[in-house]
């Protein structure tokens, strides 16, 4: 370190005691085993979120959240502003990769049963962040105010509207009225840049704090192994540098996607135009959308769509509360049923997403 660097470090250390922090990180160890690679997806998700924040702030410099100007402002950004196309493309692609990384992270935690005590709160905060991520995706999809987003939002909020009792008020709250209008755009913009980021940041803080406090979860049964048999690596600098390596790889993938597959803007939304063919939600909602399409209109005395939504809600609640009903994992025992449930969920999501894409 140069003399100036040393002086600066000492100046900061005198005030905030950096040495303690470095010492704490130096004593932190990450378990090394055949599933260690999955640890990095938490970091990748965090990295993609940071990219979202940075590109989102840059987009805010030009975006105008009104019915008359939203589409034009994005058009201007993409065609006239230097690197505006890149910022928007990176924002859109990283949003999708963020959900993908969060899914991988969630399933890896699920299959490793890392949600078992004492990490229930970490799992819960992660699940809530995933739901907020869906909210980010749903609200952000409408913001360019293009034809596809307009009608997809209409369909999406219509689906929410069929939920018994709370559906209709919820739909009106989301839309800011009976229909998808400029009022919907305004409140989706508000959710996307203020409400959701605020909540997400709090949850992220709790999540990271818990991870730091409790350390990385070890595979089931590994806790009982003698300390000498356990393979570990220091969190700092080894794990952090590997994390950085992953981030660089993701950054490269993101740049390639943004340049070779720039995010299209499409046609401006027109409420009076007929709905275009091929309306579909973002890919991570597709399996639910496709399931609702396959359900018959009436199942015995229950509306098919209502039943589907209620079943998805129930499945989501059960999934979120898994640390509290998976008693075997809590006792440190292997729980094959949970593994099969996880595999079933992945197969179901994959099959219905592909079906939704094809038909």
């Amino acid at each position: 370190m140069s003399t100036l660097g040393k002086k600066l470090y000492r100046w900061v250390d005198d005030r905030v005691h950096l040495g303690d922090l470095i010492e704490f990180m130096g004593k932190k160890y990450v378990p090394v085993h055949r599933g260690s690679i999955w640890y990095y997806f938490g970091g990748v998700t965090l990295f993609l979120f940071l990219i979202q924040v940075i590109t989102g702030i840059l987009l805010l410099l030009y975006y105008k959240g009104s019915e008359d100007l939203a589409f034009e402002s994005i058009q201007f950004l993409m065609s006239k502003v230097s690197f505006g196309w890149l910022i928007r493309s990176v924002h859109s692609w990283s949003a999708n990769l963020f959900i993908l990384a969060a899914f991988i992270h969630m399933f890896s935690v699920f299959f490793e049963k890392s949600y078992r005590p004492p990490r229930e709160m970490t799992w819960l905060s992660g699940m809530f962040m995933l739901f907020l991520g869906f909210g980010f995706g749903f609200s952000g999809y409408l913001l360019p105010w293009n034809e596809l987003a307009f009608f997809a939002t209409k369909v999406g909020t219509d689906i929410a509207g069929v939920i018994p009792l709370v559906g209709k008020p919820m739909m009106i709250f989301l839309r800011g009225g009976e229909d998808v209008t400029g009022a919907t755009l305004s409140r989706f913009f508000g959710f996307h840049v203020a409400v959701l980021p605020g909540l997400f940041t709090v949850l992220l803080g709790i999540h990271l704090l818990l991870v730091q406090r409790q350390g990385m979860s070890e595979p089931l049964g590994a806790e009982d192994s003698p300390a000498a048999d356990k393979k570990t690596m220091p969190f700092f600098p080894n794990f952090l540098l590997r994390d950085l390596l992953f981030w660089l790889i993701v950054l490269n993938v993101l740049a390639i996607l943004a340049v070779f597959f720039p995010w299209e803007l499409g046609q401006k939304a027109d409420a009076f135009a007929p709905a275009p063919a091929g309306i579909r939600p973002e890919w991570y909602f597709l399996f639910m959308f496709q399931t609702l399409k396959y359900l018959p209109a009436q199942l015995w005395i229950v509306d098919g769509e209502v039943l589907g939504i209620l079943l998805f809600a129930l499945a989501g609640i059960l999934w979120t509360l898994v640390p509290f009903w998976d008693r075997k994992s809590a006792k440190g025992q292997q729980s094959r049923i949970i593994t099969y449930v996880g595999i079933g969920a992945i197969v179901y999501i994959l099959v219905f997403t592909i079906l939704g894409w094809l038909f």
Partner: protein
Amino acid sequence: MLARLLTFLAVTLVTVPAARAADECLVCHSALGDTPSTMYPGDIHYRKGISCSGCHGGNPESSDPERAMDTTAGFIGVPRGNAISTACARCHSNAAQMKRWNSSVPTGQLEQLQASVHGKLSIEGRDRIAQCTSCHGVHQITAVGSPKSPVYPSNVVTTCARCHNNAVYIRSYNPSLPVDQLEKYRTSVHGIRNAKGDPKTAECASCHGSHGILSAKDVKSSVYPTNIPSTCERCHADPGYMKEYGIATDQYAKYAKSVHGVALLQKNDLGAPACNSCHGNHGAAPPGVESVSKVCGTCHALNADLFSASPHKKAFDERHLPECETCHGNHAIIVATDKLLGVSPEAVCSRCHSTADFPRGYRVAATMRALIDSLETSEAIADSLVENAEQKGMEIGEAKYKLREIRQARLESRTMVHSFNEEKFDAVVTKGLTVAAWVGGEARNALAEYVFRRIGLGVSTLIITVLAVALWLFIRRLERKQVREETVTNNSSIS
């Protein structure tokens, strides 16, 4: 009284078939001298041996008025409203009955009448607007082919006009329907010939039909816009029928292939002109040389205005050239392309203008063609560049939108041709060329940006990859060093 009786007997003896039984209705009513019975011997039904009771019911064989007009014996008196047509239909809708009278008259007239526009309820709300007698008359009905018949070609126009020329009457049914058809018809070629007694020329029923007349707004009507050409064609494309009139019979064939015909007949574009749009309908006549531009100008208003203000107007008038038709033709008008303009052999300008004859016009035509060609080429280039940039995923919405302005300028320039004014034409084309240059520039910038992005991606990917590899090497070196240090620490602790 005696004289009347003798007359009746004379008429009866001459006209009634020998086998005919005595018609006591006629005997008494003729003796009373009432008009219907006086008229009836001239009626075709009388000649066919049909008694008064055929329509009025009752017993024609009884001379006792009480028994002859006994309602229990079927006497109905004078039929009113729908009962009139029902009385006619008793025979006219009965094929077997008509065969007995040795008649070839079709038997579906009442059904057609009921389905027609005249079959709707009258304003009283009880009966239909028209009954059989409204057109065919009563008590002196003659065969349709008889010149005495009110529906004979030379009479039918006044028969129809009895109602259709009555503004008060027509207003009560359809206030928007004109009532001057007869006046117009009398000025038409058809009307003039009809007045001279030519039964072959078109009259009301020739185009509108007779019993089954439908509103002109009804798609099944023979005078609905898309059906008009085939209605006119029935006579005008028949060489045998038209022989004596000495006019061409290929108008329909030409029209059907023309830009107007294709639009109307194939694309069902009701805005496209049918025969009557140019020739008129009730007042149908070929437009004169001096009025062609007025006819075409009904739709092509701007072109007609520009032409009227152009130097060609005077030149055409002096040479008695039909204005629009001279360059575009009449029935066989094809899509006007830029090829019509200029001095090439296929261009219409070169028919009059050459380097020797009217050389100024020759030069202007050549310049105009060069300008419009250049605008077309610029548009094609701009279009292709925008498409190319779009295919490469570049956002070029504004330039794409501006392509419309180039097309608009090209359309304007094709209209401006009719001013035959080089300066005005040049102004419109220049406007289009300016936009085309801007659009082309934007598209080229987008394509250059596309290349820049690829290069930028290559450089940034390389930098990130180098960083990743360097980091990986650094991690490996670090971990080897850590292993070595750990080994040294372990060894020293053992020793």
